[in-house]
C-alpha cells in the first residue's frame, strides 16, 4: 500500500510543474537571430545524399552565422516523419527542414497530407540535375535510341528499376510517355541495391543521379546512355542528354531548406543569403563534386517557391499516372 501512496505523492508534486510548462514565452528576436544553435532536421538516416548536402552546408554555416548548426536525423515514412516534426516546431528560426522533391511526392502518393505550402521555404541549396540512365556494359544498347527501339519491339519486357512513387519512377513514366513505349517497371530497392541488380543484369536499366553510379561507370561496368537534363554537365561532358537524342525528358531534384510556417521573413532572408554565400565558395563546390558529382546551384526564396509550386502542379497533373490508376 505504501508504494502506491508514494506514486500518488510523486504525481501530486509534479502537477504544478505540469501547469507551469504550458506558459512559455516567445520573444521576438529576429534582428539578433541567431543567438543559439540552429537545428536542421534531415528526414533520412545519417549517411545518405540528403544528409550529406545538409551537413556540408552546416559545416560552412557555422562560420557565417556565428552559431553552430546541428543536423538532426529524423527518418521514417520516406521523409514524412521529419517534415511533420518541423511543421509542428516553434517558428522561432531555430529549427528547419532540409528536404527535396520527395516532400511533394509524399503528398501526391498520400504519405503525408501536406507539402511545402505548410512550411515557409527559404531557398534551394543545391539542384541535382545529374539524373542519368545507365545499362550494363555487356548489354547491346549503345544509345538511348537502341533502348527505345528494343522497347518498341518487346513492349513490357525491358526491366526498368525504380521504387514506386519515387522520383525515378516518375522519370520512367515520363520517358514511357515521351517515347511511347511500355517498360516493365520493377522495384529493385534503393540506389545501391539497384547498382547490384544492374551489375548482375537482373535489371536492364537504372536511373539515378550520376554520383550514385559513379564507381561502376569509372570501372567500366556500366554504360551511360543519357543525362536527363537541359544541358550537358561540366563534370562529365561526354555524356549526351536525352534531349539531344530526341527525347525531351528532364529530371532534377532540388534540396531545399524550409522553416515552420510563420517564421519571421527577416530570419528566412538572413538564412538564404548565408546559404547563397556558401554556394559560391570554391571549397563547397569541391566538396559536393567529390562526393556526388554535383555542381553548385542555388535559388533564392522567390524562385524556390515558384519551382516548388510548378513541380507540385506537374506532379498533381500526373497523380493518377503516378498512383498507377
Amino acid at each position, binding site marked *: 500500500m505504501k508504494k502506491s501512496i508514494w506514486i500518488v505523492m510523486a504525481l501530486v508534486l509534479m502537477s504544478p510543474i505540469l501547469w507551469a510548462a504550458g506558459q512559455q514565452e516567445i520573444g521576438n528576436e529576429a534582428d539578433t537571430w541567431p543567438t543559439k544553435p540552429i537545428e536542421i532536421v534531415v528526414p533520412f*538516416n*545519417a*549517411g*545518405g545524399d540528403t*544528409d*550529406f548536402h545538409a*551537413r556540408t552546408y552546416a*559545416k560552412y554555416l557555422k562560420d557565417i552565422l556565428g552559431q553552430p548548426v546541428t*543536423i*538532426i*536525423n*529524423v*527518418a*521514417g*515514412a*520516406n521523409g*514524412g*516523419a521529419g517534415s*511533420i*516534426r518541423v511543421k509542428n516546431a516553434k517558428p522561432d528560426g531555430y529549427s528547419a527542414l532540409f528536404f527535396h522533391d520527395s516532400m511533394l511526392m509524399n503528398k501526391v*502518393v*498520400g*504519405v*503525408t497530407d501536406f507539402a511545402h505550402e505548410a512550411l515557409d521555404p527559404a531557398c534551394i541549396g543545391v539542384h541535382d540535375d545529374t539524373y542519368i540512365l545507365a545499362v550494363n556494359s555487356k548489354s547491346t544498347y549503345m544509345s538511348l535510341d537502341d533502348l527505345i527501339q528494343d522497347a518498341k519491339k518487346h513492349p*513490357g519486357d525491358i*526491366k526498368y528499376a525504380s*521504387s*514506386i*512513387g*519515387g522520383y525515378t519512377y516518375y522519370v520512367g513514366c515520363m520517358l514511357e510517355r515521351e517515347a511511347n513505349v511500355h517498360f*516493365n*517497371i*520493377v*522495384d*529493385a*530497392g534503393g540506389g*545501391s*541495391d539497384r*547498382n*547490384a*541488380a544492374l*551489375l*548482375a543484369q*537482373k535489371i536492364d536499366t537504372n536511373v539515378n543521379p550520376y*554520383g550514385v553510379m*559513379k*564507381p*561502376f561507370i*569509372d*570501372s567500366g*561496368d556500366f554504360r551511360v546512355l543519357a543525362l536527363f537534363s537541359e544541358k550537358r554537365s561540366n563534370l562529365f561532358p561526354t555524356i549526351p542528354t536525352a534531349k539531344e537524342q530526341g527525347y525531351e525528358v528532364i529530371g532534377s531534384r532540388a534540396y531545399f531548406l524550409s522553416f515552420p510556417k510563420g517564421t519571421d521573413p527577416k530570419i528566412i532572408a538572413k538564412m538564404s543569403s548565408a546559404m547563397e554565400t556558401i554556394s559560391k565558395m570554391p571549397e563547397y563546390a569541391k*566538396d559536393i563534386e*567529390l*562526393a*556526388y558529382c554535383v555542381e553548385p546551384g542555388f535559388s533564392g526564396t522567390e524562385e524556390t517557391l515558384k519551382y516548388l509550386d510548378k513541380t507540385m502542379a506537374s506532379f498533381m497533373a500526373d497523380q493518377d499516372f503516378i498512383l498507377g490508376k
Partner: protein
Amino acid sequence: MDNFIIGAQAVLNLPSILLIVIGIITGIIFGAIPGLSATMAIALFLPITYGLSPTQGIVLLIALYVGGISGGLISAILTHIPGTPSSVATCFDGWPLTQKGQATKALGVGIVFSFIGTLFSTIILIFLSPILARFAIKFGAYEYFALGIFSLSMIGSLSGKSLAKGISSALFGCMFATVGIDMIGAVPRFSFGVQSMKMGFNILPVMIGMFAVAEILKAAEESRHPLQSETIKINIKGIKGFGFSWAEFRSQWSNGLYSSLIGTGIGILPGIGGGIANIIAYSAVKNKSKYPEKFGSGIIDGVVATETSNNAAIGGALVPLLCLGIPGDTVTAMLLGGLTLHGISPGPLMFTQNVDIVYGIFIALLISAVLMLLIEFYGLRAFVALLKLPKSTLLPGIFIFCVIGAFGVNNQMFDVWTVLLFGGIGYFFNKIKMPTAPFILGFIIGPIIEVNLRRGLMFSQGSFAPFITSPIATVFLSASLLSLVLSGIKNIRRKMDKKSI
C-alpha cells in the same frame, strides 16, 4: 604484401591507434547498455568523423562496430536483456549460466569467441572478398525470398514446447513489421490515420520493449517474495583466465567454425542484414548438436554460436560494402556515408584506387579484434561485479538508458512509446507462454520475404516459376521444407513419448 604496408602506414600511428582504443571502449559501453546499440554508437560518432581524415574516421567507426557488437553479450549474459539486437540469442544460454553461478565462464567464452568470429571474417574479407562479392550479387529477389523462408524455418528450434505457438509468435512479428509505409507501393498500412504510426516500428525499441521492459515487469512481479535474494551469488575467486578450460575450448572448436561461417555468410548477403546472424547460428548449432535438449539450460555451446556469428557478420558485411559500395544494413549504410562524406565512393575500383583505406580497414579490424579481447578480458571481473548491484536499482537505471536509446533512433518520442507498447506485448507473451525469439525473427525476416516475393513477381510479370527454377532458391526452399518436416516429426514423436509415459 605492399598493400599491407600502405595500410599499416595509414593506421599504425598514435592518433589512429588512440581512436581505435576509444572506439572499442565506447563501442563496448554502448553495446553493453541495453538501449544503446552498436548502430547508435556509429550514428552518433558519424558526424564527429567529419572532422577527421578519411582513414582516421573509418578506423574509429570500425572500432565502434567491433566493440559494440561484442559488448552486447555483457548485458545479455548478466541481466537477461540483450545489449544490442545482435545478442538476442545470447540470452538463451548466457543467462541460465549466470543463474547457475557461471557468469564468468559465459562471459569468457563469449569474449574469446567474439574475437575468433571477428578474426575469421576479417581473414575471409582480406582474401576472398572480390570473389564473394560477385557471388553475393547473384542473389536477387527469388533467392532472398527463399533465404527468408529458410531463416523462418528455424522457428522450430526456437519454439520450446509448442511449435504452433512458435509459428504464431513469428507471425505476430511479421504482422507488426507491416505497420508503416509499404516499401514497394509507398502506401500506408495499419496506421489507423495516426501520422506517427506511418513510420512503423523500429527494431531497436521493439527489442528493448520485448526484453528490457518485460524483464522489469517480471522483476516487479517477483519483488514481493520476501525470501528472494536480490543479487546472484558468484564466486570469482579461484577463476583464472577467461574462466573456462582448454578442454571446453576444444569441444567448441567445431561450433565456433560453423557459426563463423554462418555469420560471415549472412553478413555478406546485403539483403539479410547481420542482426539475425545470432538467432540463425543458434538454431543451426542447436539442430546440429548431439544434445539439442540441453540448449536453453545454460551450456556454453549456445553462447559460442551467437557470439561468434554476430562478430563474424562484421567482416561479412564489409565485403559487399568495400567491393561494390552496397551496404547490407543500417550500420554499413552509415559506414558508406562516412566514406562518401570524404569523397570516397566504394566500388569495383576501391581495391586499386583507395589501397590505403581498404588495407587500413583490414588492419584496423585486426587491431580492434585484439584490443577488444584484451579490454574485455581485463574488464571481465568488473562486469561480473555489476551483478552485486541489487536488481531494484540496476533495472530502473537500465530503463533510463533504454529511453535515451529509443529516443535517439529518430530523435522522437514515438519510438519511446513503442518501447512501452512492446514491453506490454512481451510481458503478455511470457504470460501465455509464447516464445519471444520467433517474434524478433519474424519481425526482421517478414519484410524481407514480403518485399522479395513482390519484387520477384514484378520481375517475372506475375509468374511464380522462377522462384522454383532458380537453383539457389530451390536449394533454400527444399532445405526449409526438410527442416520444417523434421521439426514436425520431432514434435509428434515427443508428444507420443509423453503419452506413453
